[in-house]
């Protein structure tokens, strides 16, 4: 297995963990590690004090892109990535859908062994992830191979990220 595939799988797992931490359900295609579905769960109170958990009908469809930490460029209040034009256009084309595609860029240390650290106490994934949705000004690129995109710093995948994404999709 090459390093990129391994990082893609790890990125998928990382996002699954982050989503689960926020109480969401994930559906991952076992043969396609570059995609993820994150579904919002809600609780209902039922008669006799019972409770039920069910889907809220809000869902994030994501495309996962592992990215070497060393190639991340810091901007003013943003992070810059150079991504494959094909991926960019896929995201752009899906922007008009009811559920647009969200790009999750997961940055990993270039050092293969440093991506996941095991200790007696814990396992740590040395990953930082950003999410990206094209805005109304985004246009197709003529670039043949890669295109530079700029992601605001606050679009980091953290505890509040999924709520922000839902709010951008469900408009």
């Amino acid at each position, binding site marked *: 297995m090459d390093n990129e595939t391994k990082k893609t799988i790890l990125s998928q797992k990382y996002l699954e963990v982050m989503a689960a931490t926020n109480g969401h359900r994930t559906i991952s295609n076992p043969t396609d590690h570059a995609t993820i579905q994150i579904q919002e769960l809600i609780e209902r109170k039922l008669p006799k004090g019972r409770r039920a958990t069910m889907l809220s009908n809000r869902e994030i469809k994501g495309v996962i892109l592992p990215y070497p930490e060393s190639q991340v460029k810091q901007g003013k209040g943003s992070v810059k990535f150079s991504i494959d034009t094909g991926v960019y256009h896929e995201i752009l084309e899906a922007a*008009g859908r009811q559920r647009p595609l969200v790009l999750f860029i997961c940055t990993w240390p270039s050092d293969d062994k440093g991506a996941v650290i095991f200790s007696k106490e814990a396992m740590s994934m040395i990953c930082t992830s950003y999410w990206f949705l094209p805005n109304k000004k985004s246009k197709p690129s003529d670039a043949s191979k890669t295109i530079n995109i700029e992601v605001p710093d606050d679009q980091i995948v953290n505890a509040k990220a999924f709520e922000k994404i839902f709010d951008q999709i469900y408009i």
Partner: protein
Amino acid sequence: MTLEKITDYLEDNKWQLNKIGDKYLFYAPPAELGFSETYLLPVPRRKKAEDFNQVLQETTAIISEIYNVNMESIALGVTDYFDILKKDAIYFKLSSENVMFQKTLEINDIWNFLKNLTTAYTNYIKIELKNNFYAKLGADNNRIKKIQNKLIELTKLRVVALDYQSFSFGVAADTMMGRTEIEHKEVQKWREKLTRNFMSDVVGIDYGSRNDVESILEKYNEDERKDIFEPLISSINNYSDFTITITDKNFKPKKTIKRISGQVIGLILPKEIIQEKPQKRIGFYQTIIPVDINKAAVKLRVSDLQANNLFTQKLEELDGHVDHLVVNEKKIQLKKNIDFHVSYDEKNGLFQILIPVINIHFSLKDFNELQHEFNDQFSTLISYYLNIKGKPDVRGQEIIDYLKSILPEGQFA
């Protein structure tokens, strides 16, 4: 599946449109559903979006889960859903040729027919479920029983159409509601065809057709045939002379179910079952017995009557007469007695009462109800025939003349 059907469904169920967004409509649920106060259900509205139909479908699935109904019923709406039930319904018309009561039906006959139909249908579900799914459900009797009970509870026959004038009605099983409660998908798939299968396997059987009868014999063993077919056969070969007709949804007759011959019944129903049926042997005796009037009861054994007794006479047929009637809770002393004959029909287990003068007969299960039955029968005759407007037919005139000859003058029109 359309957006409008879904929003109609939500609004019918008291969801409120809270916000119209660029891509979605947001609906607030009614409080009784138990969602948090901030929850809004997003319903896609951008019809040109390439994933619109898919998201709409998923939204419908969420709603169907909330209400525990199938997606079709949401997509079709309540009225259309009834139409689906009606489309798969089995339509019957019950009719009587008994002119005495102007071809009206006894409530008891209707009740018995519906009861027998339900029994046959319930047994059909049990037997077909076991025959089709025993192995697939891991030959686990407890599991089968559990699914069977759930299936019967959810798939009961319901009246979906009614025509009072001819007593025609349509029955259908709700085979879609509560589908999520049927854990086995194949069982649910089979359930959706239940009414149609019941029609072709049971109700629509032509008992005069050798092929149809053979198919029953091949498909079901003796016990199964008894459970499914005995109730229906007892209604088809009823003692009240009512006819069962299968009709289309507009109650136009399609096929009258003819009485089934004893030979065919003998083939379908196991012999021991037929023999097991207890048959009463009724004899009529006229006797004089000394009675101790201080005691509450008189003990009389059948052997007492059959013994050589100077004061007992066995009658082949019982002749009797009634000298009064109770009509509308009022005692009417008759000008002339109503003479009648009573015989016992062992095959049917009924007392047959004949009023020879006007050739009217009726049946009775409990002999002690004789006077009561007379009152009922004659109340009906009086209220009908003495209120006929216009010229009655010959038969009607015959009955009117007879009634006038026995009833005190001036009390009835």
